[in-house]
């Protein structure tokens, strides 16, 4: 089962109802301008391409999907990203590609009809613990309250990744 890759080549109905070959010879499509936020920084496409071509990712992809990874879409996206300001068809192709990826990911999520998604988070999420067997002891509560502040302030100060610990290695990323 290859969950989402086969959807990456699906045409998106909103962009155009004509087949893909005719799209490139069309007039510039003004509807795609409002989706320019979908385009990521070009260094990210370069990084995705580098990871996709790496040996470790190739083994992982074979392990998961049983086939070789296809990195051509990332290469195309990277080229289009570099030319997006000069070349309108490149911009449109990139926006369409991003729309396909986003569509694939959201479709995988909404296609999961095993459970019903909530509109609101559960009301009992933050209710106080019942006095009884599962109540944390006083010592625990004091310890973990300090931990709460440390965690929240670390999110505010450092973002999602957190402070670099002493044992953290320099990553292989080319992103800065």
């Amino acid at each position, binding site marked *: *089962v290859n*969950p989402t890759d086969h959807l990456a080549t699906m045409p998106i109905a909103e962009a155009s109802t004509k087949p893909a070959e005719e799209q490139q010879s069309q007039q510039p499509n003004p509807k795609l301008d409002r989706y320019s936020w979908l385009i*990521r920084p070009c260094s*990210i496409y370069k*990084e*995705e391409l580098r*990871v996709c071509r790496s040996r*470790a*990712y190739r*083994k*992982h992809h*074979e*392990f*998961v*999907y*049983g086939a070789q990874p296809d990195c051509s879409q990332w290469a195309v996206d990277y080229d289009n990203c570099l030319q997006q300001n000069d070349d309108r068809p490149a911009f449109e192709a990139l926006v369409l590609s991003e729309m396909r990826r*986003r569509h694939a*990911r*959201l479709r*995988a*999520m909404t*296609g*999961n009809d*095993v*459970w019903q998604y*909530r509109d609101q*988070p*559960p009301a*009992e*999420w*933050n209710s*106080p*613990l*019942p006095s009884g*067997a*599962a109540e*944390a*002891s006083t*010592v*625990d*509560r004091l*310890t*973990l309250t300090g*931990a*709460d502040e*440390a*965690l*929240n302030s670390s*999110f*505010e100060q450092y*973002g*999602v*990744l*957190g*402070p670099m*610990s002493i044992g953290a290695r320099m*990553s*292989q*990323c080319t*992103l800065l």
Partner: protein
Amino acid sequence: ERQPSSASTAADESSASKSAPSSEDYGYSVFPKRDPGADYKAPARFIGFRAWRHNRCLKNVLDCSMTDPFIRYLIVAIRSRGCSFTLSRNVSCERCRFSFSGGYDPMRKQVAVCENEFWAKPGICSVLRHELIHAFDDCRAVMFKGADEEAKEPNESLDRLACTEIRAASLNHCMLGAAKMEGYTGMFNYAGQHQHCVKSKALMSVLAARQISRPEGEAAIERVFDRCYADLEPFGRIPASLKSFRSDCDRFIIDGARYGYSIQEARQRTGNAAPGSASGSPSAS
């Protein structure tokens, strides 16, 4: 790094009320502090090995929450969904009965980390990642409806549990190196074996959480596998390594911001999550 091999996680769904069948305890017997029917009082230990172990568990929970990018991103994702996640209210280090490593309690909305088997950092981080997926699924979808409704529709509740376990197994465990070491794949014959690993681990977890037979568990996993294996939220990709910089360079964090999993969104939805404050106020976004 090594995965905890033997112990599996357990204990979803509520404990048995008076009306539910007595044979199904939904895994709560593993966590004696959580079973309201038992007269178990956890004795407080302030000195000795148990105290040291408990404090080490708490310290490692905090360390994992500060350093592991997967755990931090999952916490941000849960908060972005409107459920305030704090260590004091939603995580608990406690001693468990059998050789489990942890569980998620949807009745009290707590991640229970067992300090019996593992209290070193890699084990605690692995347990936290696994249970945070359950917490994330509980936050965004209806996972548990109450013991009476669970008794009326056993197959659907089993399907939801199987779905969560499949997702937790595919996103956190079953990396190539670990699967080789634990025997889920061969050394060189590993093409397409990720599904086998995920199904095996999910089956182990489902059988530990419910009193059902193995064919029933396998049938439940087969029913939901295609839909749940494809659902990769909040990461959007199957991580290839426990060290995120080796596989992803934390790009799942950058991508996640475009799908609503970001610190700004978390701040907006939960208001910095003070424990005891009301959660779930609908945001204007």
